[in-house]
């Protein structure tokens, strides 16, 4: 019975974390979908968001919820700058060139962060209590992260479906040449999408801090780059919605397998959960290479 309760608790926790994972991958998928660029420096932007939340809280006592719009704005500005300085010249370049450029940008940001903020792990704790369920206790901070992720993803969805600019982004994704014949300024859409993608990524970094109380560091992003890649592929790579749903699935698998692996004597579950995630990824790629929700 204790085991079932623990599994349920972990799955619940997995769904909550999964929503944040999903949001943290939407930016990667958006940038890939529109520009066909793989942002291998993804995690570095999450790190910027994490530090934003940390400093706002530590210096000014600003709650992470209020840091969200700030991180989004900062991310969009950084995104435009990176687009104009680097990416714009590489849009039609071979894939390897953009891959290397994004890799270099990631390293540049990490090293700059290390110079400015040092290499130590830091963290903060935002105490707002917790809710008691029959089988577990969930801190409100995690519920805040969960609800924020869903609301933000929904807002992005509505923006894409209903606004003129959102529809123009979709048109460019579906057919660049077709978009040109409609009078859409494709370069502007590229800049906007890149900026939005980086903005969402930095923003998700704020929410990530609610799960890693002492895990903020210049190099923290690597793990998220890796997870975001797995999630993006699960979700079909080019679709921000696919990424969001896949984030849920990934969170469930990660936390569910943690409980199950703990049952095996002599196994250290924490180290193996990542292995399980990659096994799932490989199975999906073998059985449905367009991603779990891809295929459109």
């Amino acid at each position: 019975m204790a085991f079932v309760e623990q599994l349920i608790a972990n799955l619940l926790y997995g769904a909550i974390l999964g929503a944040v994972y999903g949001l943290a991958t939407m930016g990667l998928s958006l940038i890939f979908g529109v520009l066909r660029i793989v942002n291998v420096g993804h995690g570095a932007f999450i790190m910027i968001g994490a530090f934003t939340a940390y400093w706002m809280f530590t210096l000014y006592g600003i709650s992470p919820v209020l840091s969200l719009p700030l991180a989004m704005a900062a991310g969009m500005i950084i995104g435009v700058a990176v687009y104009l300085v680097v990416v714009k010249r590489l849009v039609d370049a071979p894939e390897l060139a953009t891959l290397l450029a994004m890799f270099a940008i990631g390293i540049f940001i990490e090293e700059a962060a290390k110079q400015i903020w040092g290499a130590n792990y830091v963290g903060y704790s935002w105490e707002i209590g917790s809710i008691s369920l029959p089988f577990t206790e969930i801190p409100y901070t995690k519920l805040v992260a969960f609800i924020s992720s869903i609301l933000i993803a929904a807002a992005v969805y509505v923006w894409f479906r209903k606004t003129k600019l959102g529809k123009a982004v979709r048109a460019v994704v579906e057919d660049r040449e077709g978009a040109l014949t409609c009078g859409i300024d494709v370069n502007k859409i590229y800049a906007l999408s890149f900026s939005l993608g980086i903005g969402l990524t930095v923003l998700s970094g704020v929410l990530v801090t609610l799960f890693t109380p002492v895990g903020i560091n210049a190099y923290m992003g690597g793990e998220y780059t890796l997870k975001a890649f797995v999630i993006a592929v699960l979700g079909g790579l080019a679709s921000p919605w696919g990424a969001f749903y896949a984030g849920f699935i990934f969170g469930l698998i990660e936390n569910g397998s943690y409980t199950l692996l703990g049952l095996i004597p002599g196994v250290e579950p924490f180290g193996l959960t990542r292995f399980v995630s990659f096994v799932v990824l490989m199975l999906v790629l073998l059985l449905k290479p367009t991603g779990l929700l891809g295929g459109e």
Partner: protein
Amino acid sequence: MLTVRELESGYGEMQVLWGVNLDVREKSITTVLGPNGAGKSTTLKTIFGILKPWSGTVEYIGENVTNMPPHKKVELGITLVPEGRHLFPNMTVEDNLIMGAYLKRAEDRLEDSLDLVYTLFPRLKEREKQKAGTLSGGEQQMLAIARALMTSPNLILMDEPSQGLAPKLVKEVFETVLKLKEEGLTILLVEQNVFASLEISDYAYVLHEGKIAFGGSVDEVRESEEIKKAYLGV
């Protein structure tokens, strides 16, 4: 209306156009004929600005538009119906049309433009809510033309609208092009379907290996035995 002089362009290092000269008169249908790989699509893409011209000039109603990006040309009233249609496959027919009216100038006329294209293509009205990717080839071609009309153009560049269509539909497409001319539009058409396109054209050019080999009124092209044998394969 459109004057193209000594236009050169290509892909990467490979030059495709070697000094193309074309004149398109207002409210006419001008056709560019030529074998596969002659550079017909390249000519239209370079005029529209999807490809950067290497040298030469493109003039539209007296204005030099050689290096103007495509979205600005659409603003001026030029658009392209590209080879292979390039629709938005996961959007509905209606949304494809609305995307055509993206720019302010076209958006202001959205309702009128929709009326016009639905009158021209009643079949699209019936399939309004259907995804563009699920239309038949002929319907997709109609949608491509209709989407171009939504931009409120004066000059339409059309790249092989009859490609891959059954003979009956080919006829329908050419009749539509003629109707557009009667509506006051100017059309620069690229075709391999020699007979059908000469039937509706006022002027014709023959493009051969990236150069204009011959140009003139349709009657002149028809009469030139040489042209027939060498380029049109008639």
